[in-house]
């Protein structure tokens, strides 16, 4: 990460006080959701979800809207009752505890700052609830505001701040109570693109500096990949895949997960024949590709599959060899071009390349078989695509 250098520098200067408090924090070793389900009337939002968070982890809950990720967070925070299952903090069952007794900090999508209180009193709120004496309260609020660089705005009302500043106040407010777990519900989705990237770095810095445990809900794969130490992908209220960002990014467990991880070329195909072990030749509209089968099961010839390829894994060959395709739409992205091509067989593909390509040109494309992911079942792609559009 580009941010690692300044972050370590900051950690070095502030480490003594921070770590001493972090160590003093009565923390859990793990928080577990066991078989948690939640229904709204008859509609299930979460089904039998098992999720474990170890101390010090930064877990991103990833999925499209309606996949149950925010519901999972609300259940953990105690803002919504469970329809089934249990939540455990080490050996203590906490799903019947009221939210105010759980001690988890929460950052909301819409900031949820108290509009009638100044920035400082917003940050002091949690401490006031814990009956911390006023001078201590004030000192710790200012310390938390210092962390998010808003010390100078302490006496303003939230409405006088910009969106990014408001969200930083919300983060400071959650940090001020020194929670053992911080829950973040799409905290950056209301900010504009540039601010989002900046705040992302900020959140990561706070995580590293303050020895936090974070559960972070998002629908943005980039956010999830850049922040999390572990990714949890949800689909229709169930767990679809969990793993390190790298695992999920390079080896998505299903076409659904692949659709989140930037595998923009997703299409149904059929197995034309097996090549080596784990490899298969697939075909769609006369286009033949060699790919890697992502399931231990043996796929017979003719089986329906879904093919997933990332635009950046498709290379434009220098000599025009390989798959012949016509460049239809070329978008400039600074260092690269994003090109929509149509192969001779009529299949539309998305390619990213740093070669100069002009619309109307015929290109040669090549891709390594290990970067062509083949998933069993043809319905996967369509379903994933539809859910993503919601």
């Amino acid at each position, binding site marked *: 990460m580009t941010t690692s250098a300044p972050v370590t520098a900051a950690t070095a200067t502030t480490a003594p006080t921070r770590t001493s408090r972090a160590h003093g924090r009565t923390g859990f070793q793990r928080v577990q959701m066991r078989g948690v389900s939640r229904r709204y009337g008859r509609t299930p939002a979460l089904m039998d979800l098992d999720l474990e968070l170890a101390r010090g982890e930064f877990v991103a809950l990833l999925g499209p809207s309606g996949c149950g990720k925010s519901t999972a967070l609300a259940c953990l*925070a*105690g*803002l919504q009752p469970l329809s089934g299952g249990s939540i455990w903090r080490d050996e203590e069952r906490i799903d019947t505890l*009221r*939210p*105010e007794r*759980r*001690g*988890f*900090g*929460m950052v*909301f999508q*819409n*900031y*949820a*700052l*108290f*509009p*009638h209180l100044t920035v400082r009193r917003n940050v002091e*709120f*949690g401490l006031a*609830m*814990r009956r911390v004496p006023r001078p201590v309260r004030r000192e710790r609020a200012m310390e938390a505001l210092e962390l998010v660089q808003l010390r100078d705005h302490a006496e303003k*009302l*939230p*409405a006088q701040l910009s*969106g990014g500043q*408001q*969200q930083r106040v*919300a983060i400071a*407010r*959650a940090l001020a*109570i020194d929670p053992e777990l911080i*829950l973040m519900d799409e905290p950056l989705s*209301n900010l504009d693109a540039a601010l989002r990237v900046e705040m992302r770095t900020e959140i990561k810095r706070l995580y590293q500096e303050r020895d936090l445990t974070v559960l972070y809900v998002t629908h943005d794969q980039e956010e999830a990949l850049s922040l999390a130490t572990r990714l949890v992908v949800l689909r229709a209220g169930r767990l679809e895949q969990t793993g390190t960002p790298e695992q999920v990014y390079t080896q998505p467990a299903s076409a659904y997960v692949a659709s989140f991880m930037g595998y923009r070329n997703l299409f149904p195909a059929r197995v034309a024949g097996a090549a080596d072990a784990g490899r298969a030749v697939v075909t769609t509209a006369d286009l033949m590709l060699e790919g890697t089968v992502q399931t231990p099961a043996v796929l017979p010839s003719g089986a329906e599959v879904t093919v997933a390829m990332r635009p950046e894994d498709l290379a434009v060959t220098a000599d025009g060899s390989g798959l012949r395709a016509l460049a239809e739409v070329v978008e400039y992205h600074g260092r690269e071009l994003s090109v929509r091509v149509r192969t001779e067989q009529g299949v539309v593909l998305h390619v990213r390349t740093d070669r100069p390509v002009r619309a109307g040109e015929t290109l040669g494309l090549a891709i390594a078989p290990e970067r062509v992911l083949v998933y069993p079942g043809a319905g996967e792609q369509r379903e994933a695509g539809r859910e993503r559009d919601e």
Partner: protein
Amino acid sequence: MSAMSEAQAGRPRPPLRHRLAERGVDGTLVLLLPAVVVVAGLFVYPFVYGVSISFEPEHGGPFANYTDFFSDPYLSGSILKTLALALPVSVASIVIAAPIAFQARRDFRGRRAITLVLMLPLTFGSILIAQGMQRFFAPFGWANLALEALGLPQGSFLYNYTGTFIATLLTTLPFSFLLMMGFFGGIDRTLENAAATLGASRAARFWRVVLPLAMPGILTAFMLALVESFAVFPSAILVGQPDNATHVLTLPIYQAASQRSDYTAAAAIAIIMTVIELAILGIMVLVRGRLYRGPAGGGKG
């Protein structure tokens, strides 16, 4: 320089319509005309006229109407009687309507039915309500039969303070409810969730978050209820005790104007009533001005 001023002089002045439109003057202003006529003709003129005739009494000096009012304890006592009715009615109206308005933010079964029932009195006049009360609270009406069935002592709800209190409450309740429902609807529910995750108990959430944000709405509703109940008239006569306990300020006005044809005295009492009302409202507005009155959302919605 000279070339520039020449160019300026050469540029045609924008047409008058454009210049007016820039100052917000355009054809739509004509739509204000009916309102201006109505306000001027039906409010400003009579009010000014009323003020001026109140200082031209039928007997005595210019302040005779006012000195007459304050030197007669029966007349001036109506100020306290009005306050003794209007203030408790307004408080009761808020205390009853606020929790319902607060609950009505959420969608629950029967919400529409409750809203409808609470708003129905709006469609009745106060005379209709008073007539209904005369039957309902009669010595052998439903209210007393119900009390008897429950083994409770029977009450006398009519032709006294209680009767007017109930009738006035019924007329102010829908206004208070409607007004507060609008105000409370703007209080973001995630604020309470945020407070809960910060360790605030249900009571703390109410006192620290909900009430401060609801206060402007509550005060506004209170002021409206006060104005409404200050002007109580039919129910003070029909279900009250107009010559004694419910001898409110509107009664001497009516008696002076319609029974003695002394319009100057009526105008004087009406002005006394207006001044008292404005004084109370002024205090309330000052109080409200000290409260937080910004948006009640937690950030971006």
